[in-house]
């Protein structure tokens, strides 16, 4: 097969190659039109509920009933948003959500980068075995440890505080350790040699040489973590009972069961909860795509 590939290149601009030079859509116009039709229809199906959410969040309660499936913005009741913020302690919950998102991100990134660096660059006896253990824990469902972990935090007197949602993040997560290891493995080993010659300690080398160079990985992992911590529901549902420590998803769930019929209010709140993720997406679209790609098993 290798021979064939080489002759293909050696033959120069053969007909197949020249055809491939032209953009695909120019080569087969009818097919292109069909593809566009499929893309447009699919996009409509995918984006429609999303637009409907925004449209509904701006309607009056009566307007929701008469509008039905329409996303035409006939009303602009911005006060739905003010109502969403004032009818429950929105900022309090947002603050709780932010605390349980940002601090764990820092903890996870640091602990995972540290371990990932060790697995990539400090190859010592048993490091391979330990790494296999890390990978094995990736398959372990968190539910098995859910009940005993609750007892652990109960023993520590941390039930109904934000701490159970924050502290475990500082002790690494196998998946992100794996990602950081992959990233550090691809960096040139000469960096380490140079730093060793300079009499740099391992930790200093990690902090001053490797971590700054791992910026793309840090950004990508942070964004992925933001999406998952921000939307975390099981954790708050287990540990938080009192109103003052609720996070936004938990508050929205409670809101749904209390104000289950006030559609515009619920949609406005949902939009507000989704908003940070949307903003991050449009600011860091490229990093997100890179990050997701990075997690895809390559």
């Amino acid at each position, binding site marked *: 097969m290798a021979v064939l590939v080489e002759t293909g290149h050696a033959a120069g601009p053969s007909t197949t190659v020249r055809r491939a030079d032209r953009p695909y859509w120019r080569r087969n116009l009818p097919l292109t039109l069909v593809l566009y039709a499929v893309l447009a229809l699919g996009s409509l199906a995918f984006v429609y509920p999303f637009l409907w959410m925004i449209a509904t969040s701006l309607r009056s309660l009566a307007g929701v009933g008469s509008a039905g499936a329409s996303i035409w913005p006939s009303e602009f009741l911005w006060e739905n948003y003010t109502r969403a913020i004032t009818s429950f302690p929105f900022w309090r919950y947002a603050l709780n959500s932010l605390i349980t998102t940002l601090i764990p991100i820092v903890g996870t990134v640091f602990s995972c980068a540290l371990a990932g660096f060790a697995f990539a660059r400090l190859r*010592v006896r048993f490091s391979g075995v330990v790494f296999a253990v*890390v990978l094995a824990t990736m398959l372990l469902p968190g539910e098995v440890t*859910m009940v005993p972990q609750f007892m652990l935090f109960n023993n520590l007197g941390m039930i109904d505080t934000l701490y159970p949602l924050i502290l475990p993040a500082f002790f*690494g997560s196998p998946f992100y350790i794996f990602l950081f290891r992959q990233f550090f493995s691809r960096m040139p080993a000469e960096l380490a040699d140079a730093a060793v010659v300079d009499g740099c300690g391992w930790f200093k080398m990690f902090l001053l040489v490797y971590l700054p160079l791992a910026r793309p990985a840090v950004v990508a992992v942070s964004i992925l973590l933001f999406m998952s911590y921000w939307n975390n529901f099981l954790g708050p549902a287990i540990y938080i009972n009192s109103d003052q420590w609720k996070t936004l998803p938990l508050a929205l*769930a409670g809101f749904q069961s209390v104000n289950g019929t006030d559609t515009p209010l619920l949609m406005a709140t949902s939009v507000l909860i989704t908003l940070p993720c949307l903003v991050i997406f449009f600011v860091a679209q490229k990093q997100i795509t890179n990050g997701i790609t990075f997690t895809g098993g390559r």
Partner: protein
Amino acid sequence: MNPTIGWIRQLAESWGVPAVLVPLVPFLVLLVALYAVIGLAAYGAKRAWPRADKTIAFWLFISPWLIGFLVFTVGPMLSSVYVSLTSWDLITPPKFVGVANYTEAFQDPRVGQAIKVTLLYAVISVPLQTALAFAVSLLMNVDLPGIRLFRTIWYLPSLVSGVAQIVLFLWVFNPQYGLVNDVLGKAGIQGPGWFNDASWALPTVILMSLWTVGGAMVIYLAGLKDVPTSLYEAAALDGAGRLRLFWHVTLPQLSPIILFNVLTGIIGALQIFTQGFIANGGPKDSLLFFVYYLYDNAFQNFRMGYASALAWILFVIIMALTAVTLRGSAFAIYYETEMGGRRRRPRLRKG
């Protein structure tokens, strides 16, 4: 609460530590003490074996993970085995009951229902999601003007996740005012009750899960971009048509990525919780997902022993499904190696 912990807390309170930080103090004290011991040990080891600094550094670097692994995974797992053999409501001391929790679980009709609902969800939604995400990624891989915009649009719903997504879809599928039934009504079809109908609730959740295939799509898309064009050129020179190119080049090249996504998809699907929670288990337990039932037993009824037994049953189910997937897919996965790649053959049974 542990008496020692309580004592440290009282001490902290008497020193005027802010009330919010009081629960953190015992934890920090324990952690600092632990790291003092580790630091001393590392220092001693460095004095004794100066040339082993790399080994010492390695263990220090992974120490956060190692401590977390022992404290938050191994310890809880071991105690979970014990707790699953007891009857415990968190208030009175645990009472040893042997395998009674397990025998009860096997006779509990709601456990059967929970397993049925959860497995059905996983077995139907994961293949559907995979097929859809893969098909969409093929579509998005075509080099058309404006394709980036379409990619963004299809990915956008993935950002509406968790509770917000469920709240939205409760209304999209609302029998009276919802988006879907309004559209169906205009087409002259009387839409079903969706979430309110016991036989429609699970299909509705599956349908809802398809809305967020954008994440998987991006992964497959990246995989498609990574397939070396030389492979396509060579196959085309050999006279392969579009279908055979797909079957003999694209699919084998992407098979490891597909397997990884199917595996994580199955594990994730078996752990579905929020949908069941918001719907309160659904009409007639039609959305009684296993983790929701586990949660209900542990944190609503405070049956810690029974919940731990359920957790172990879930563990066995997840491991079994993972093993079946790995085994069943072994013949179809193509791993690139330095020798040029090979198809992994399923191990032949001995004897």
